[in-house]
């Protein structure tokens, strides 16, 4: 649920001004008070962070559904960011993940058991906080090196973009890069998928060998 809110506030940040303008059309409070349209996405982000405390949802099925919401939100983000291939792949991958997760829950329990006042909770929480602070430091350090949003320069892929049609005959540049320019990487990906399939088969084998001694 937390991620849900963060992803949806994310859409609004994609076009903050446009959202604020259109939001005044249908929201009563925003009609009176223009700034509200700008504040609303931040409110939603805050809600997302609040819901973090509710990451302890007792029902695992609802947690899985919330994760599905995040995944499908990502699909819309990809479409807004002009990446249709990714949207297609993500929608398939997300659906398969949810089906597998629901199948796992169907075979086991829906409810989360937890020990009351565990000592480990404090250790975990402090570890999470320390890790967050360390990552924050590096992020603040690194963000100045990134180009501002929307002003990316085609430094690395200029060769791919301008030669794709001539060299590969693919009109879809993503597929041209994936299957022709970087076909070896794709072979690696296929190898990973194959290995995982074998691993899953080995793990889920019904009859294991029984040790006799």
């Amino acid at each position, binding site marked *: 649920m937390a991620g849900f809110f963060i992803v949806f506030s994310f859409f609004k940040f994609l076009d903050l001004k446009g959202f604020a303008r259109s939001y005044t059309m249908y929201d009563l409070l925003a009609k009176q008070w223009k700034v509200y349209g700008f504040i609303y996405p931040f409110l939603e982000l805050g809600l997302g962070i609040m819901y973090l405390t509710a990451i302890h949802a007792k029902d695992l099925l609802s947690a899985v559904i919330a994760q599905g919401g995040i995944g499908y939100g990502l699909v819309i983000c990809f479409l807004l960011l002009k990446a249709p291939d990714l949207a297609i792949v993500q929608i398939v991958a997300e659906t398969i*993940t949810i089906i597998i997760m629901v199948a796992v829950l169907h075979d086991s329990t829906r409810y989360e058991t937890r*020990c009351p006042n565990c000592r480990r909770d404090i250790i975990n929480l402090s570890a999470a906080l320390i890790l967050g602070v360390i990552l924050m430091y590096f992020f603040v350090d690194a963000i100045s090196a990134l180009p501002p949003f929307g002003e990316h320069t085609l430094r690395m892929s200029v060769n791919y973009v301008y030669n794709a*049609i001539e060299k590969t005959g693919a009109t879809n540049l993503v597929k041209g890069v994936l299957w022709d320019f970087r076909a070896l990487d794709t072979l690696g990906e296929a190898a990973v998928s194959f290995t995982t399939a074998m691993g899953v088969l080995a793990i889920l084998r019904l009859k294991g060998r029984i040790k006799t001694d």
Partner: protein
Amino acid sequence: MILYILCFFLLLTGLYGLLISRNIIKIVISLTIVEISIFLMLILIGYISGGIAPVIFQEEVLQHQAVVDPLPQTMVLTAIVIALATNSMILAMAIRLYKKYGTFNIHEISKLKG
């Protein structure tokens, strides 16, 4: 810039869940959130405002129209498939653990021996 920061918060959400939760299913969900934040970050960096999707039917289009960077998209496409594979592997292990111990709680599993 606010988009990058938001993406980072999504990453922190996932990491928080990863460290806090003791249920295997919740750990998988947190891992997925971390993955999603990384994908979004890469795609955000590759975005060019006013650019068209990297699907081109006429070469003349390239002369006067910016195209969104296809390279991060390709990398993320690979990463999505690998993330799916990893997730299914973890879930397979989770179902085996449940069959053996009757619980998803990693704290309890570490207490039980055998």
